[in-house]
């Protein structure tokens, strides 16, 4: 169907999409956990910072966030020169895509984890507290492990969305699958529909793998005699 050059483009596009998705998934979950923990802080300033972060990233279009990160913030990032002539910014377009998309999905993850945390009974936290656990230990060993079980279905959905949103990195010329596909069908208009079909199929497979691993994780976390 494709000649080797085009095949290479598709493969490198898929690989970039996988890398992009992987880093975004991890980083957005980390942001979600840290944010949800910080939301339980006694400090009003910390709580309002987290709240402001969520409001901004949840209520504005992710595509505009991406462009803003890359073009506006990108201007101010320091550069380095490997050869004395070239000025390469320390954060590449791939870097900005990862940061921007992770913060976007992370805002939802904070809310998702918060809902799980709120489902943990106060009496369970009190039991930990009365055994001498610190606030962090209570979170780390009691609240979070229980919250994650409640949060998993919503987290699942958000991560699927995130994976699909990585196509927007196309807008700042990250050579992921969509970007590569577009370059192909710009050169070969006749290949447009087959290539689109290919993009669909690849995404169905990638999301399928994600869903399968999330389900496996969910099963592993299931507690005998607890919940369903």
């Amino acid at each position, binding site marked *: 169907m494709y000649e080797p050059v085009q095949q290479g483009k598709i493969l490198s596009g898929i690989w970039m999409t996988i890398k992009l998705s992987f880093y975004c998934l991890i980083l957005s979950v980390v942001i979600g956990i840290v944010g949800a923990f910080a939301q339980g802080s006694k400090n009003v300033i910390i709580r309002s910072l987290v709240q402001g972060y969520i409001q901004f990233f949840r209520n504005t279009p992710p595509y505009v966030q991406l462009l803003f990160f890359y073009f506006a913030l990108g201007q101010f990032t320091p550069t380095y020169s490997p050869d004395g002539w070239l000025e390469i910014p320390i954060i590449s377009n791939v870097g900005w895509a990862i940061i921007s998309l992770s913060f976007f999905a992370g805002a939802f993850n904070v809310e998702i984890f918060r809902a799980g945390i709120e489902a943990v*009974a106060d*009496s*369970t936290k*009190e*039991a*930990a*507290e*009365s*055994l*001498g*656990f*610190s606030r962090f*230990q209570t979170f780390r*060993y*009691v609240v979070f*492990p*229980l919250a994650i*079980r409640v949060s998993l279905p919503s987290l699942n959905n958000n991560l699927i969305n995130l994976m699909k949103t990585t196509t927007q990195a196309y807008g700042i010329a990250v050579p992921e699958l969509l970007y590569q596909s577009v370059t192909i069908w710009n050169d070969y208009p006749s290949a447009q529909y087959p290539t689109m079909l290919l993009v669909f199929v690849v995404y169905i497979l990638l999301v399928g793998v994600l869903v399968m691993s999330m389900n496996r994780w969910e099963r592993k976390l299931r*507690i*005998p*005699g*607890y919940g369903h």
Partner: protein
Amino acid sequence: MTSKTTEVIVSIKDVHKSFGDLEVLKGVSLDVRKGEVICIIGPSGSGKSTLIRCINALNDIQAGTIHVCGIDVTDPKLQKLELRKRVGMVFQQYNLFPHKTALENIMMAPTLVLNEDKETVRTRAFALMQKVRLEGKENAYPGELSGGQQQRVAIARSLAMNPDVMLFDEVTAALDPETVKEVLVTIKDLAQEGMTCILVTHEMGFAREVADHIYFTDNGVIVEHGPPKTFFTKAKDPRTKEFLSQIL
């Protein structure tokens, strides 16, 4: 019962506690000596839970003083950890960690909070499971245990911290009648070994048998108190009499 020293280890003096406008404790005082077992009884809403939660600083108080093993609980610079190492607490709803096995529930606090060696703690946890008569259930999750079994794991979990005082807040109130006894037996064993115990309970037979001293609270004050013998037969206050007539 066992030999009692005169060392006061919990001293509560004129404690006042409000939730917003609602004054729940209106000047409560009591002393507990080492090895003593005291029972707090009284109608629901009279402030019993609030009182014992103040002892391990789960609630703060507005006035008065509380000392536990020489620790000033009302000190603004209170090291809560030091207090909680000394005071074990068992709740009505057991409050076990549902994602941990019985043994892990018992081991968690000593390893995390006291940084004790895991193997030492494991040995102790097995011994405690035996003590609360649950050998063989070490790897069961709370959801796989009956209420009475869960409550005994909760007692073992508190004991694993080697506390000086144990607080029990209506620990049999949520149990089926047939499992109440197994939990009461466990507590009785503890009492007989000389553990200082403060219990909120509705089990009058148990209180009569095990307690050294009984306090009756109503509406945020201690109305009457005394050793079980005199308390149950010679109550003077009309409120105590009415309560006892309803419950006995």
